[in-house]
């Protein structure tokens, strides 16, 4: 049973309340048409429902989200997966700034590019490991303050001049791992980050996550894995240990 809603001109409060009420009545699948700018879709929802979003959703999509599956057939704006706990978001397009801020679980898969400050302070805890995979390139401050989780930048279809990530990559990183399909220049790296080669465990992990990613976007896993990856790890889990005088 799929609930289709024509959201043209509908204010976010009304839309989200409608979705919440329907979930209380055991609806599990939604298709939102004519979406443009409605905020907080998927916010705070715990149930494992599915929402297909046709149109550009507003900011803070899936904030505090805790289970659902969202499919966006357009670009995303800012703040997707803000402090998200569980669930998955598939974006058939690009997305904006501050994605996955404080994300602690679930998956954010983006077909094209992302903006600034992706994955700030992502954190993991025991089995909850958040994953962000970007098909294109990212802007400055990617992985800032990262404390856990997996961030992957693929740079597919980019031209040679465009760097795959901006400056201050992984600045303040003290946990988690960033995989990059290609090279980065040393001066763009944060002081807390070291560049390493992948080992077998890494390849296995990448294959698992990218396998899923490729399926969603109709890509060939072998082609994606054919170019060498590098891995960025924090130099220390206590990057500011020597900053203070006691």
């Amino acid at each position, binding site marked *: 049973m799929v609930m289709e809603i024509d959201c043209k001109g509908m*204010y*976010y409060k009304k839309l989200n309340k409608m979705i919440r009420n329907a979930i209380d009545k055991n609806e599990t699948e939604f298709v939102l048409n004519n979406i*443009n700018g409605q905020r907080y879709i998927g916010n705070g929802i715990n149930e494992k429902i599915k929402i297909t979003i046709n149109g550009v959703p507003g900011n803070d999509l899936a904030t505090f989200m805790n289970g659902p599956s969202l499919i966006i057939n357009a670009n995303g*704006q800012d703040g997707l997966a803000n402090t998200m706990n569980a669930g998955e978001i598939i974006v058939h397009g690009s997305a904006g700034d501050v994605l996955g801020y404080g994300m602690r679980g679930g998956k954010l898969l983006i077909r094209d590019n992302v*903006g*600034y400050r992706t994955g700030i302070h992502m954190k993991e805890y025991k089995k909850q490991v958040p994953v962000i995979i970007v098909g294109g390139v990212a*802007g400055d401050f990617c992985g800032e303050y990262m404390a856990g989780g997996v961030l992957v930048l693929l740079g597919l279809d980019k031209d040679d001049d465009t760097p795959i990530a901006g400056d201050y990559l992984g600045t303040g990183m003290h946990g988690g791992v960033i995989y990059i399909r290609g090279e980065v220049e040393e001066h763009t790296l944060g002081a807390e980050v070291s560049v390493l080669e992948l080992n077998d465990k890494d390849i296995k992990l990448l294959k698992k996550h990218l396998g899923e990613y490729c399926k969603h976007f109709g890509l060939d896993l072998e082609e994606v894995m054919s170019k060498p990856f590098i891995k960025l790890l924090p130099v220390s889990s206590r990057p500011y240990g020597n900053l203070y005088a006691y």
Partner: protein
Amino acid sequence: MRCNCYIPSGCSISGMMSESGKRMDGNAIIRSIALMHDRGNGLGGGFAAYGIYPRHADQFAFHMMFDTKQAKKQCEEYLKDTFDIVLDEEIPTRPGGVFEEETSGKDAEYGARPITDPPILWRYFLDVPEEKTTFVTEDEYVVKKVMEINSKFDSAFVASSGKNMGAFKGVGYPEDIGMFYKLDEYKAYIWTAHSRFPTNTPGWWGGAHPFCLLDWSIVHNGEISSYGINKRYLETFGYKLELRTDTEVIAYLFDLLVRRHNLSVEIAAKALASPFWKDIDRMPDREQKIASAIRQVYGGALLNGPFSVILGHSRGMVGFNDRIKLRPMTCGRADDMLYMSSEESGIREIEPDLDEVWSPKAGTVVIGELHEEV
């Protein structure tokens, strides 16, 4: 009328331009800013429009606000002495005009908000008398007089002073301000809009964006944390900063760098949003020399703090952000149209099919220009 304290501004901005000079009515820009309704708080909205007075294209069009009839009279005496008034008339308004269309940004439950207590809104089409330009240019003269009016007359305010353009702004949600000023009846090839979230006593129409001087108009999202020094820097060049909003600083900096110092808009933007030293140190020699010199000489013009700005002038529209992109901006193109907005949905509301859509890099400018022949 004037408030005596600093007003920071948070909000949303939107801009659209036809690079072929095609003139459009204000309906689209109103819908775009209405969609981003939640970014404002109803205490300020405004628009700048270019190409709206073709029959008076050579006169300076002063959009003025007066608290009282007395103030208007006094100011008109002053104007009579300083300019040749070719025509003056009330700016047509639609009292109680509210934007009723449903967009996904506007909560219909909040109901329509009619614009109340507007000041007296009047426009003057002015020529600068020849004898006044013996030692100064027309532009310089106008700038000086505008600053004099704004500082001397407490109950009068010049909202815009350019040729063939105007600012329409006030206290209210921008979509309601747009309906109030009957922007659907004007035709312009550049429209910019702003929705404000001020944190001070409402009631001061002059505080809304856009901020204009000559044919510069600025709509701005963010807060300039270097305001204190930018203000003092400008004051050394004779600018009088009366309006206590940081946006004023941006407009005056462009006037100083582009009009008076003859820098290109791109270089001026580079002074305002300079690259970091670590990036300058890695530039090739020629570029490094330029970038270094700009920072050394124009340190007082460096803008710090989050900002995204849309600058309008008679030949184009410029969008740019602070150098670590703390405020959002998305741009889009479709045929000869260029769009800029705080949110992509603001553009999609008026142009669902875009040829390209992108987010400009921090500290870079996006320039829209009228084609040569226009």
